[in-house]
């Protein structure tokens, strides 16, 4: 490793500027309320609160309910998008059926549409189905993502045709070919897609905001706002930071353990596109 003092200095500055707010968030979750806005800023809590702020966060709002709902939302999105995305991607890549290009184009076009265009009509659609303010209304729209189909098609196209043909000659039904041959081969891509979808779904804000009225259905993203706008009381910064930390931990864990898949999948998909 050659010594690049200037490069190191710049990198250090960048790292400090960008990492500092995250450090502030986590350290504030353990500080006493008055210490959070102390000037000059305390890097570490002088008055360590233990888990008090986390308990307070749970008192102010049902943060663990939100946490559970966020998990439910993220997992359903991951499972559905990954499985049906792989299924559809496989279908588009390896089968020449009439209307294939048209259907694929139609699916692809949905990626281009910003969600704001859909949010009002989807809300009305949910109302018509009777799904407003329910788990069905929260989870179903957006459960499948066209990006998943797109990405899986790219990877499925690379699957060796000979393998599939061989299985067919052996008399295997098509579904079995997908489940037992294609899926295992696609596993790394599936893992990357799963992580990408998880991160998107975990951070989803617009749709839950619009569709949910009951606190019991809320996800973390929307619930966090209640820490900054309470009625007749100071915003509780410590509790807000504790809740924010709770909301960040799953992604952080994912990143630590699956960094390779995450980075590789995201950039590969992006570059391929």
């Amino acid at each position, binding site marked *: 490793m050659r010594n690049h003092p200037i490069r190191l200095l710049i990198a250090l500055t960048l790292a400090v500027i*960008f*990492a500092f707010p995250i450090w502030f968030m986590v350290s504030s979750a353990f500080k006493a309320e008055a210490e959070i806005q102390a000037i000059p800023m305390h890097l570490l809590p002088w008055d360590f609160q233990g888990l008090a702020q986390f308990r307070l966060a749970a008192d102010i709002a049902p943060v663990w309910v939100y946490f559970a709902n966020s998990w439910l939302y993220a997992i359903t999105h991951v499972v559905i998008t990954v499985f049906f995305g792989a*299924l559809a991607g496989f279908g588009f890549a390896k089968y020449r059926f009439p209307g294939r290009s048209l259907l694929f184009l139609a699916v692809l076009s949905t990626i281009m549409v910003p*969600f704001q*265009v859909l949010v009002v009509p989807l809300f009305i659609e949910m109302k018509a189905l009777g799904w407003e303010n329910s788990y069905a209304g929260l989870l179903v729209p957006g459960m499948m993502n066209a990006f998943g*189909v797109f990405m899986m098609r790219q990877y499925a196209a690379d699957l060796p045709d000979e393998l599939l043909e061989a299985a067919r000659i052996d008399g295997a039904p098509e579904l079995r070919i997908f489940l037992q041959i294609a899926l295992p081969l696609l596993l790394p891509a599936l893992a990357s897609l799963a992580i990408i979808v998880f991160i998107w779904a975990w951070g989803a804000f617009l749709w839950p905001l619009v569709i949910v009225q009951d606190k019991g259905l809320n996800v973390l993203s929307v619930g*966090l*706002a209640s820490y900054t706008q309470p009625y007749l009381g100071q915003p509780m910064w410590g509790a807000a930071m504790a809740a924010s930390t709770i909301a960040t931990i799953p992604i952080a864990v994912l990143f630590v353990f699956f960094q390779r898949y995450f980075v590789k999948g995201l*950039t590969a998909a992006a570059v391929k596109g």
Partner: protein
Amino acid sequence: MHYKWWGLIFVLPAVGFFAAFNLFPMLFGLYLSFTDYDLLNPPIWVGLDNFVNLWDDRLFRQALGNTLVFVAGATVPVWGLSLLAALVFDQAFRARDWLKAAFFLPVLPPIAVVAVLWRVLLHPNGVITSLTGGWWGVTEIRWLADTALAPFSMIAVHDWAMIPFFMMIWLAGLAAIPPEFREAAAIDGAGPVRTFWHVDLPQLRSTAVLVAALSSIGAFQTFALQYVLPNDAGGPANSTMVLALLVLKYGFQYFRMGDAAAISVVMFAMIMLVTLGQLWFNRRA
């Protein structure tokens, strides 16, 4: 080759889903943009009135301006700074992986967390004020309450959260450049700047377009910061009201669904224009 129909069967769940929850709403939304609909009573057809009235609508004009400013501030600096960061982290040096991981932290929290976190940091008498104005003895900077500063704060927070993410994409693009090219340039005696200009940049073209497209599309749709950061969503005196947030306001606060749909159609048109423009520019140059 009769098994080809299985392909259709395989894609049907996804296609069916998108038809029901993407394509149909899109068309329905388009229809709504030609109506006056308050959700409580049946829609009334008004033709192009919603669009025509938008032009006279002061709030819409303000949101349009704010959106353009925000998108500009959220794409150009992000594009440039993330590229610079990628160049810094591209070569190995001591502690590089640690520093890169630290630099990457802003990507981890969901956008709602970013907003709440910065709301605390940008308190007028808070941490960021002391770190910046504190040097000159300024004790109160109204980052989120001043109509001139608030839009800038939005851009700054958004850029902070996005630059590390796009750096990753640049790094992937840089990694894809065959090392022989760089070695050939080194043999020819080219310095780092020359190498970058003549070797890296041309190879990075598709990455550059990707970063530009992704960051601008994302910027158009951002509203969470403008919703959570200021005291009232859309910022002091609507200085941070952007089109994405205006759709929410017209649709779910005023219950003017037709107007909300019209605004979202305008947004879509703008995104399409910008994206197509970028693709065309790529093809030409």
